[in-house]
């Protein structure tokens, strides 16, 4: 790893370039929930996808199944782990930590079911893209203004 050809991989003047922060897309039809053999990954009644760390057997099947590569085996707890959409914060009246701390306010969090809420208003007014739409996972994370090529 130490001899990684750092310089050669740098493209000096790309035509186009994006930052695409990847997080769990909280899929509506989540492949990770579908494949978990014991029900340790589940979709909550309000739409987040969580891991039950006391029930996960660490089979890593969900890590293989997630099309967005957002799951990992937590080396400290030894169970599958991922972005929880800050479930503990959003249920106590706070924004997710990434939304609250983003220095340029690039992230927006809101209730998708609230049709007149700020999130749905934003979705109506902007060009919106989801990642890998052909996999029919119906993500609940939307990206505004990125290209189709971004996966």
């Amino acid at each position, binding site marked *: 790893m130490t001899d990684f050809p750092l310089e050669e991989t740098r493209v000096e003047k790309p035509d186009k370039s994006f930052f695409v922060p990847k997080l769990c897309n909280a899929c509506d039809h989540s492949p990770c929930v579908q*494949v978990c053999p014991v029900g340790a990954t589940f979709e909550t009644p309000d739409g987040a996808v969580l891991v039950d760390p006391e029930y996960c057997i660490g089979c*890593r099947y969900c890590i*293989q*199944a997630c099309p967005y590569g*957002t799951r990992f085996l937590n080396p400290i707890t030894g169970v599958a782990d991922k972005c929880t959409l800050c479930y503990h914060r959003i249920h106590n009246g706070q924004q997710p930590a990434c939304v609250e701390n983003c220095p340029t306010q690039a992230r927006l969090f809101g209730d998708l079911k609230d049709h007149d809420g700020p999130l749905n208003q934003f979705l109506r007014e902007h060009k919106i893209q989801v990642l890998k739409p052909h996999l029919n996972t119906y993500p609940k994370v939307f990206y505004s203004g990125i290209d189709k090529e971004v996966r």
Partner: protein
Amino acid sequence: MPDQSHLYEALKHVVGYIYPNDIEAHWSILIVLYPYLTGLVAGAFILASLERVFNVREVRPTYRLALLTALAFMLIAPLPLLSHLAKPLRFWEILVTPHLTSAMAMFGFVYMWYLMVVLLLEIWFDYRRDFVVWSRESKGFKKFLYSVLTLGVTDISEKAIRFDEAAVKTITIIGIPSAFLLHGYVGFIFGSIKANPWWSSVLMPVIFLFSAIVSGIALVMLIYLLSNKIPPRQAEHGVS
């Protein structure tokens, strides 16, 4: 806490983006071992069924060997899976709360069906007469072991033996689709992963099946050759 310094070392070389799971992008070698073992089981069983169901006389000497090979590999097949789990002591959850949409959750049931209903039953019916004879002839612990294995049924009359043979044949007929199920299902574990374009194919179970047949037959051939060479002796013809 495990040492993670190598991860930070590797992170320094990242240009561009990484996925959160780049810590562990691949399933480990133990996951490769498991389909390999069940493939050997299914293949060996199919070789045994050649003799019983399809009356291929040439493979008759390998019948019992093939069955026992299948049993031996079946017994150790879950070990790589178990040791691959990050929390092996929670394995029982797969049997207690299986999630029916998950290919992996069916593992326990397919495995149990194949081990208990197919392999053990067929071997028991095939060896039943021998168990009874051996339990009469041997002494001490062996006698005790064989009498337990007869399950207390000592009837070896002509009629009972004929029933055993019919039972073996029926079980083998059930066993062939079960062997396909056992290994085709392993292919399905991989085939149902949409996220990996190299895996997600309906042909996966078929590919697994054919490689199983080939590798299982090859294994029995190898064991048969070796067991006839070391120690050198005549090939056993017509045991059963």
